[in-house]
């Protein structure tokens, strides 16, 4: 296998991991509270900014990571208590518009605090440099680190949801929240925990993405829409589906951008391919989504509810 293909596959995997971290929170929040949160991308953005700020404050990546996770959790709780909680019983349109308002607010807030300039997020010393893949081809150690950390979190999330008491209550809440409340469980507490968890995952993704994307206002929306595609492909409310969808989207998006043009060079004039290649590559994810939904409107791994 040529080294460039391995490299791009890893890039796709790494994008998929980041997408999964965001999509998992989004899909859990939707599954349990039936709440569609456009501002989830803002939590990702704040994660990246928090990380930069804490790095400047503490001087180390790892301490900043811990502080960012705590701050993201708090931010998620505040958001839930102040706003999201009032929206669970509203219709989707109202949820969308309120969280859209939050996006407008959040994007200008970070500009007000940190300015227009993209912020620089450092890489921990441990993950600086390259890892030899095979032969003389190197791959950034930091990206390997993202993949490993993301997989670890995905595994932990699975254990948490599938094998702990709170996880059981979350799953029960997703299936039938009235019944859970009737059984004497404090469903509002469950809601807050799920929201905080989603915020932590998004903040974690923001921290990880900080060094490889530019940390600036509006960075949340680009990835938010891809995360929507992920959970729509995977099946709303399904964490497993989110993982599958994230891998598909990450892979297609990265490989399409990397190779589609070369493939098209083979079948059409070079000039035409250089025009159409990038255009089709950026649309490819959405086109594949359209095809998948045409055959499976509920996504690949739909959740069965009442």
């Amino acid at each position: 296998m040529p080294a460039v293909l391995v490299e791009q596959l890893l890039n796709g995997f790494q994008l998929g991991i980041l997408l999964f971290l965001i999509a998992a929170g989004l899909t859990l929040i939707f599954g349990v509270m039936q709440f569609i949160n456009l501002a989830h991308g803002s939590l990702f953005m704040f994660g990246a900014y928090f990380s930069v700020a804490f790095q400047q404050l503490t001087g180390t990546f790892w301490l900043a990571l811990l502080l960012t996770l705590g701050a993201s959790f708090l931010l998620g709780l505040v958001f839930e208590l102040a706003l999201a909680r009032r929206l669970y019983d509203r219709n989707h349109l109202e949820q969308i518009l309120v969280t859209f308002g939050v996006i407008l607010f959040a994007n200008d807030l970070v500009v007000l605090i940190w300015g227009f300039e993209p912020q620089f997020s450092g890489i921990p010393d441990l993950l600086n440099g390259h890892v030899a893949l095979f032969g003389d081809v190197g791959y950034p150690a930091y990206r390997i680190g993202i993949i490993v950390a993301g997989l670890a979190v995905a595994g932990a999330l699975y254990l948490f949801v599938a094998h702990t008491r709170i996880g059981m209550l979350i799953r029960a809440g997703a299936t039938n929240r009235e019944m859970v409340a009737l059984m004497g469980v404090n469903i509002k507490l469950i809601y807050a925990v799920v929201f905080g968890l989603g915020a932590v995952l998004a903040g974690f993704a923001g921290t990880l993405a900080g060094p490889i994307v530019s940390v600036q206002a509006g960075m949340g929306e680009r990835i938010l829409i891809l995360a929507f595609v992920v959970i729509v492909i995977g099946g709303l409310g399904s964490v497993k589906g989110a993982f599958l969808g994230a891998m598909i989207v990450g892979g297609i998006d990265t490989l399409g951008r990397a190779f589609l043009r070369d493939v098209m060079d083979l079948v059409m004039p070079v000039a035409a391919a250089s025009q159409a290649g990038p255009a089709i590559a950026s649309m490819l994810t959405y086109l594949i989504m359209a095809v998948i939904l045409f055959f499976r409107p509920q996504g690949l791994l739909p959740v069965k509810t009442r």
Partner: protein
Amino acid sequence: MRAFVLPTLLVLGLATFPLVAGIVDEPYFLGTISRLIIFAIAAASLNLITGYGGMVSLGQAMFLGIGAYVVGIMAHHGWTNGFLQVAVTLAVSALAAAFVGSIALRAHGIFFIMITLALAQIFYYLSLSSGRYGGEEGLVVIERSQFFSWMDVYSVYQFYAICAAALLICLYVQWRIIKSPFGHVLISCRENEKRARAIGYNTFFYKLMAIVISGMMCGIAGFLLANLSNFATPSYAYWYRSGELLIMVLLGGMGTLIGPVLGAFAFLSLEHWVASHTRYWGLVVGPLLIIVVLSSRGGIMGLIDALAARVRGQRS
């Protein structure tokens, strides 16, 4: 009675703006109003599917982009006949709407929202990467659409008249639609689709038709927008724009004929006013939006109804 009062007021209002602009000698002001009217058309088109049909779309701005790029690309190649451009705009919008609708309608509720959002992104990226037609930079409309030899589309007054006429025609068509048997079935889809299907209506077809009609109307708005700004840019089709259109509909009053027009005027005026005072308009508009959505029922039209009811109550 409201059914007659508000449309009459709207027509009178539309007729007053050019007079005011002429008296104070500020033709530029009329250009601003034309922009409000164009977005009113777009909001009204979204209202047909969201307000009457109960389908929340987060991809309506795609049709603004389609209309704008039809004008830009045709003018780029020397086709400036306005009638031809309108026909192409309608045809392309209808095809795109049929494509989006036939995929999005296979799912419900939240899926519909996300699919319309994602499919609109396809058009956004298409326009973004169309190197030949400006790409990110956008495409300058080198010549505005030409309708009649006696017409000067570069005159702010005449262009305003075209926009105002387009708005009135769109509202009239929409009024006829919602009063027709077709409209009744569409509204019944919003109220209870299962029942509508149980009676024997092919609700998929009705909803798809509504999406197509709505897309065509919004395409016309895009057509006018490109002519007004002499420019077509990917940002017309960005999903923020779709979100803003939803705000206008909700602010004005969902499922009312005139509401989205008032919503568009109110929202854009507010946006304009805030932006002229502070760079950080999101810090103001965002919280305002949250408050409006959380506190209001029925938007501006709901307020008007409540006021009218109170006046009537005092009289009797």
